[in-house]
């Protein structure tokens, strides 16, 4: 009835699209318009993830000139494989950060999950499938427990995840028992899948074609329904251009990695998860509510959102992703030990999310930041490995390069804010 009440709209719909009728709006039309828009964005510093990509390019050129192997097909494939497990963990961290929360225990959880799987399959003789399901359950239970601590008792996430970091490391030791390291059988499904599965030559191009077709279809369908609703649409040639760029870019990359082994299942699985999370975050009610809670939890609550459910889903997903990452890392490494997940995993995963552009303060960031961030970190690490220097120098250079990669982004943001945006 409130809708009836507002039925007496003031004016009839204008000739221009409803969303472009304000006369203060600077219009974007045709090629020139887009060029101008792009220039304005450049000047305003509103570049999305462009600066981090730029950072990545700078880094790559640097390492390439020091050691050409860096950009070899083979090396790119290995970077992608190593990036995947921690990238998946970082994806979970992105979700936590979007809520303005942190999870310091993803490393321990990944180790504990992998150890549980290993003990169940290798020591106790259960099937790999059983082991994987059990490991995922470990993640789920931990996440649920975190959600309980947060929503019922109000313990800050920093504290409970710090406690988890310690406790689950203890459990990892406990589960592994005296023997310590457990080697996974090399014919185990997990080992084979993570290490030796690649998409075949032909299949990979089919994949590219399907992706481009899907993209194009989604864009055109979106444009059509906006036009039907009397709203502005993206300029058609622009859509075509973007699709073409996508096709050429993906096609070339595929050609290039096919020189070596091609796209690994491991990497594709990670990318698929990122795309799926991106879709969930941007296109579903759950994602919308997640951003709302991260932006202003009180406003979200007053809007009738079930805030506790959002916290539950995020803590659970973060821990489950940690478990998945731990399993894949174990498969790729073919073993689980007392050190699994305990060294740099936490910091790397959190750093990846932040470097990719997700804010620590909630409400700002995308699923893609996990991908971008982990690729940057892995590229730095691999590059420095190839250059081959003493640890002292390597540490110093890692820090410096990291700073460089992010500083480009920061400076461009700074330009934006001084031009009044944000």
């Amino acid at each position, binding site marked *: 009835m409130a809708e009836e*009440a507002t039925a007496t709209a003031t004016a009839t719909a204008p000739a221009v699209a409803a969303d472009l009728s304000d006369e203060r*709006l600077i219009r974007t039309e045709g090629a020139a318009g887009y060029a101008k828009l792009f220039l304005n964005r450049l000047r305003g510093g509103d570049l999305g993830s462009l600066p981090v990509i730029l950072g990545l390019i700078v880094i790559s050129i640097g390492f390439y000139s020091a050691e050409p192997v860096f950009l070899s097909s083979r090396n790119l494939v290995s970077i992608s494989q190593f990036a995947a497990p921690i990238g998946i963990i970082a994806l979970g961290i992105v979700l936590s950060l979007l809520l303005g929360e942190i999870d310091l225990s993803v490393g321990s959880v990944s180790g504990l999950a992998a150890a549980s799987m290993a003990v169940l399959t290798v020591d106790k003789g259960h099937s790999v499938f059983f082991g994987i399901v059990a490991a995922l359950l470990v993640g789920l239970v931990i996440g649920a427990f975190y959600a309980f601590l947060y929503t019922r008792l109000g313990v800050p996430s920093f504290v409970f995840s710090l406690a988890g970091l310690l406790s689950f490391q203890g459990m990892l030791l406990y589960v592994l028992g005296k023997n310590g390291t457990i080697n996974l059988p090399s014919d185990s499904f997990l080992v084979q899948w993570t290490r030796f599965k690649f998409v075949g030559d032909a299949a990979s191009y089919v994949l590219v074609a399907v992706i481009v077709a899907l993209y194009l279809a989604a864009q055109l369908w979106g444009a059509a329904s*906006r036009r039907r609703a009397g709203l502005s649409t993206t300029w058609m040639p622009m859509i075509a251009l973007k699709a073409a760029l996508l096709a050429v870019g993906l096609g070339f990359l595929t050609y290039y990695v096919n020189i070596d082994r091609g796209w690994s299942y491991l990497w594709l699985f990670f990318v698929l998860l990122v795309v799926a999370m991106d879709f969930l975050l941007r296109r579903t009610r759950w994602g919308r509510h997640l951003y709302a809670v991260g932006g202003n939890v009180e*406003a979200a609550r007053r809007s009738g959102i079930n805030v506790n459910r959002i916290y539950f889903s995020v803590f659970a997903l973060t821990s489950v992703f940690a478990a998945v990452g731990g399993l894949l890392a174990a498969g790729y490494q073919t073993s689980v030990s007392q050190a699994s997940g305990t060294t740099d995993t936490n910091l790397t995963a959190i750093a990846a999310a932040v470097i990719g552009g997700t804010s620590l303060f909630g*409400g700002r960031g995308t699923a893609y930041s996990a991908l971008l961030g982990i690729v940057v970190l892995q590229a730095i690490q691999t590059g420095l490995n190839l250059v081959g220097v003493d640890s002292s120098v390597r540490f110093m250079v890692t820090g410096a390069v990291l700073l460089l990669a992010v500083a480009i982004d920061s400076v461009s943001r700074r330009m934006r804010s001084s031009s009044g945006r944000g």
Partner: protein
Amino acid sequence: MSTSTTQSPAGDVVLSLAGVTKRFGAVQALTDVHLQVGAGEVVALVGDNGAGKSTLVKIISGVYQPDGGDIIFAGRKVSVGGPSEAQELGIATVFQDLALCDNLDVVANLFLGQEKHHGSVLNEVEMEQEAWRLLRTLSAKIPSVRIPIAALSGGQRQTVAIARSLVGKPKIVMLDEPTAALGVAQTAEVLNLVERLRETGLGVILVSHNMADVQAVADRIVVLRLGRNAAEFKVEEATTEELVAAITGASDNVVAARAERRQGGEQHG
């Protein structure tokens, strides 16, 4: 000052409060407050700054839990455990602090918690279309609905918050100082809107410091002072002077003094 406490509201009583009490630390914000709203009735809630109006609104909308007292909704005693329960009962609220998510755009804020969707996928196109319709109804001057709320002017934000309360099917709408930041045209539209809500049989609680607006649209005026019921008027019974006196608790108040001084007709500058 004419105080008539027993009133039979326009239609059936939708909401009725009795003996509501609320304390914050050392401050007693509400003491034994009662209030009734009928269907198709506009009740204005007025009072000085800090009188407890917003606290009362937040109690009804489930944001705060009262320390004591009863809330009777549609004849049933209810306990509003949280904002989502209030929404389920059919209580829509425009909060004084707006309660918008700065990081989300206008469309997302408008439909927050009540998104339109195909299956579980958001229907952005329909929401955007509907957003423009709602905003036009309120004469909103918003250049784009795809910019984050953080980039809007004060009045633009308030318009968004008001438009929010029209999404869904409420039985009662509470507006906490809805026109504070609005321009003259937008204020007029909101007053029109309040009248349309009344015509469709909704109960409306309007909190405002603007006596002219209150007198223009309200059926009944409830005055709070320092957290207690101070007076209640039928709108046609009350003069502005009486209202101000009830709010400030004195008839020789600064408002009266100013009015007199200006009556004196001296030119300034």
